[in-house]
């Protein structure tokens, strides 16, 4: 089963100069290990290529079930000098949470149970 990362996690992005940091937080503690193994810095860098040059560095916060990605050269110069609409990267966590990710069947069942009827349709990705 393929879902968008948003089905598994929420998060928030912030800026520092031309870098953006994206914190990805699992919706359930038991899903952290899966993301830690699969949502590598390389995978994130590759997915974000259309909007961020990188490189990407990843940090782990197992106590919070969170992973922090620091993405360089992401904001068109950043802050007051950037010409882009989202100069401070306020929408970059949402961008990353679009990422399609393969989940094993058992995890797929847990995702459906977690969301009940409320799993956003766009989070299911046709194979």
């Amino acid at each position: 089963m393929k879902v968008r990362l948003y089905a598994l996690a929420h998060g928030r992005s912030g800026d520092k100069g031309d870098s953006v940091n994206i914190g990805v937080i699992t919706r359930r503690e038991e899903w952290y290990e899966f993301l830690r193994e699969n949502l590598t810095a390389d995978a994130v860098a590759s997915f974000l290529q259309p909007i961020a040059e990188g490189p990407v560095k990843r940090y782990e916060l197992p106590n919070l079930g969170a992973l922090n990605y620091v993405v360089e050269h992401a904001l068109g110069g950043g802050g007051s000098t950037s010409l882009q609409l989202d100069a401070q990267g306020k929408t970059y966590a949402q961008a990353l949470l679009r990422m399609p990710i393969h989940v094993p069947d058992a995890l797929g069942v847990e995702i459906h149970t977690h969301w009940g009827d409320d799993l956003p349709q766009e989070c299911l990705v046709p194979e």
Partner: protein
Amino acid sequence: MIRIAAGSGFWGDWPQAPRLQVESGPIDYLVMDYLAEVTLSLMHRQKARNPTAGYAADFVTDIAALLPTLLDRNIRVIANAGGANPRACAEAVCATAAALGIAGLRVAVVTGDDLLADRGGSVPLESVVKPFYPDGRPFSSIASKLVGAHAYCGVESVVEALHRDAQIIITGRVADPSLFLAPYLHEFQVGPRDWDARALGTVVGHILECGGQASGGNFMGDWESVPHLHRLGFPIAEFESADKAVITKHDSLGGLVSPATIKEQLVYEIGDPTRYVTPDCVSDFTTIELREIGANRVEVSGVRGADPPEKLKVAAYYESGWMISGQLTYTWPEARRKAEAAGRLIEQRSRERVGDRVNNWRVEVIGAGACHGALQPAIPEPEEVTLRVTAFSEDRAALDEVGREFAPLILTGPPGATGFAGGRPKPSPVFAYWPGLIDRNEVEPVVEVFVS
């Protein structure tokens, strides 16, 4: 038990928040953050035009309305609203108090952070301020266009101001978490090298420093479930002892305080989580333990810390040019193609007038990938889009010419342009940010107490 209430996350944050924090339940401290990265550069510009300006004037009026209650309940206020002119801010607060018939109000001013105003002229700044990153350009390269340079000062002078019985404490640039750490250190007599305790207070400061963003605002976890956002309660930190804090909010106000809302704020604007650096200590965010102990009550404990770096961070701002931005909206049919054609027209017509005096252009189509670009699925025909054209130049007059090319599109461009309220776009100054480092002994924080 002490209660530290967040009142503001940035200059321009929700004006009702401080009043609601004061009126909706018991608090001991109201702490307000007014300074984002570029705010100080705007305040310096104000001060350049008017030497009595350069601080957050709305802090003075917002606080004025609350003064009688603050005094009646001994609620102390800490705010970095002083910006580029902390003394003028404090004088304004005292004058406001006097006008309300309040005498004897003690207002502390914490300065020393302003490297242009507060240092004696003996040693030139270029020799003591180094670039933050090893490959950063030297300070001398921006010195001629410098607008302001501030060292991020730490908690000590705010604690001194509390010790000197100030009711209101106004600072310039102090590290944001330090504003919230100060009451904790003042109340609990924490030793100067108790890094774990300072780290706990710092983590609490990071949770509170963006106001409602920790109590249900900007919450991606489940935003539609957050109750009563129209009466959002900003977060409050309760300390019954020095070893842990409870993050909560007033019951009667809206919002949500949960491990999920706090986690989103914890990961906001951090790099290496094992080293969250402030002038006061280095905190390890991977040691934070969160425990939900009740509805809208989350305990924070277990935080480990270490000693802070020798040097203080410096934020400098310099004039780097001008920017202009304008928008036009187009609908079906062919909304996107019309918007893109309009963007090309504006650029073509501008270039006839300004040639290569405009260094950078950006054309975006809001509603068709302005934020997420190629990450979003290609929408064959968006029904309605907004064109956004932005340009940067060191030549202000060139951008004035660009600004005149937007409105004409309505009558001389693709059909059906609308959304042109607000008049001709005008260039606004760009203050670029330059991060640096300075030795602690080059910066001397000063605490003065004014009395109304």
